[in-house]
């Protein structure tokens, strides 16, 4: 379908919220005159009790009045996360360990499933049934590519091992 010429004024609601005073260079923070409030650092009166381990950004002095608690840090990923939270949000050493911890956490998740007697159905969890239904050719191509790449990497690593072994033998033979 081609694009059509449009008369904007025929569109329902056209211009209804137009505001010439919406000057993009004017800071949003000054619109409400909060600066006139002498005590603008308000906190809710009630604070959620800290009854689980909560990691806190070092860029704030305290724990927020409420917080989420569904997955406290634990295991190796938890240790990495705790280490990451020793640094501010301004540092690589905060974010990159968190990304690493997430990957470790995935392996921990599979191990946890197995320990609880549950074999994860990764095929279904990845939504592959629906991909098979709607996108079969691309799906087969993708799987074949992954299989070939995996086989290639395995073959490469295997050949590397035998070379190393041979080198070690030569080295020892001098003695």
């Amino acid at each position, binding site marked *: 379908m081609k694009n059509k010429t449009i008369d904007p004024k025929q569109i329902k609601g*056209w211009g209804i919220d137009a505001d010439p005073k*919406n000057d993009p260079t004017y800071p949003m923070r000054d619109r409400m005159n909060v600066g006139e409030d002498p005590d603008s650092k308000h906190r809710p009166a009630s604070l959620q009790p800290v009854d689980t381990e909560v*990691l806190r950004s070092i860029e704030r002095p305290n724990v927020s009045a*409420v917080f989420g608690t569904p997955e406290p840090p634990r295991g190796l990923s938890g240790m990495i996360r705790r280490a990451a939270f020793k640094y501010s949000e301004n540092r690589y050493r905060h974010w990159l360990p968190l990304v690493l911890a997430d990957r470790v956490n995935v392996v*921990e*998740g599979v191990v946890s499933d197995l320990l609880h007697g549950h074999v*994860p159905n990764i095929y279904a969890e990845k939504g592959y049934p629906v*991909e098979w239904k709607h996108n079969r050719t691309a799906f087969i191509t993708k799987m074949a590519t992954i299989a070939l790449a995996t086989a290639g990497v395995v073959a490469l690593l295997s050949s590397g091992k035998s070379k190393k072994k041979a080198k070690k033998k030569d080295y020892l033979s001098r003695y």
Partner: protein
Amino acid sequence: MLAMEYRGPKRVRAVQKPMPEMKHPQDAIVRVLRTCICGSDLHLYNGNVPDTRVGSTFGHEFVGEVVEVGSEVTKVKTGDRVLVPFNIACGECHFCRQGMFGNCHESNTEATAVGAIFGYSHTAGGFDGGQAEYARVPYANVGPTVIPADMDLDDAVLLTDVVPTGYQAAEMAGIQTGDTVVVFGAGPIGIMAARCAWLFGAGRVIIIDQEDYRLEFARNYSYCEAYNFKEMNDPVVFIKKITDWMGADCVIDAVGAEAAGNTMQTITGRKLLLQAGSATALHWAINSVKKGGVVSIVGVYGPTDNLVPIGNVLNKGLTIRANQASVKRLLPRLIDHVQNGIINPKGLITHRLPLEEVADGYRMFSAKLDNCIKTVLLPPTANQ
């Protein structure tokens, strides 16, 4: 209760989890009636958001019925049907008092750059989301808004994020009457931003994407011009050319970290995570706007691990005009627009799935299968 559960990149499932508990006197427990998969959820799904822990439940777009309230909750009561804005906001801190509900300082302990968001990693507060039968809703006096009796739940669920974010994208673009507006990304937010640009008096609205079915949808839904960037040598030159070599007055980045269209950005930003995602759409936006123009960013970017913390520009609402939508601030006006037939949110919905099929839903949306624009998930208890 049944809930979606993250197991690792591109792996999710529906499992039985414990019921959410009240943790604070202003908490409420909500039985979820409708919940959506958002384009932003794909950043989590793909493993691109740091501190997304296995076992987490996603879902920041949901409506439901209040089944329990804390001792300090006065604005909603058991039995109320509420739409729950995706931001978790206290309503009292320095930022909430300026209407910046998306930047609340009292809901996220783990980061200061971003406020808390339901089901959006521990970086965004560590709260479980609404892709479940029940959800814990903190600060129930602030966020949850009672759904008008005559409003369709499908319209209401899109008022939790899609409509306000699209609307604020257009608002932040500072559109003046007759302006030419370009929107990068024809996902639900981009389509809604294009639709809302007209409300601010745009004279011309153009949307750019790589999926023909989404462009077709945008033409019909948002009455805009739609172009496929795969058919262009260079989108920036194309936009300059069709705007009399001046550039657009306003450009909206409704793509964020998952942008396609540049191999180097895809490798370094999306695959290796060496920067805050692919900045392709942002490059295009900055380069295709005219001098003195405005770039409005609502596409989500990752946190600071590259030279420019553009994700923090978004999350902190700096004056490039980028922010998470402050849903609560916009709701009264948007509810009016829906009730007056000016915006038709549920027109975006193309798929409805039971929560049990959440893995298929994510795959379908992520891989853009079956002409998917927007999916609503229905928990088993939604029809009780």
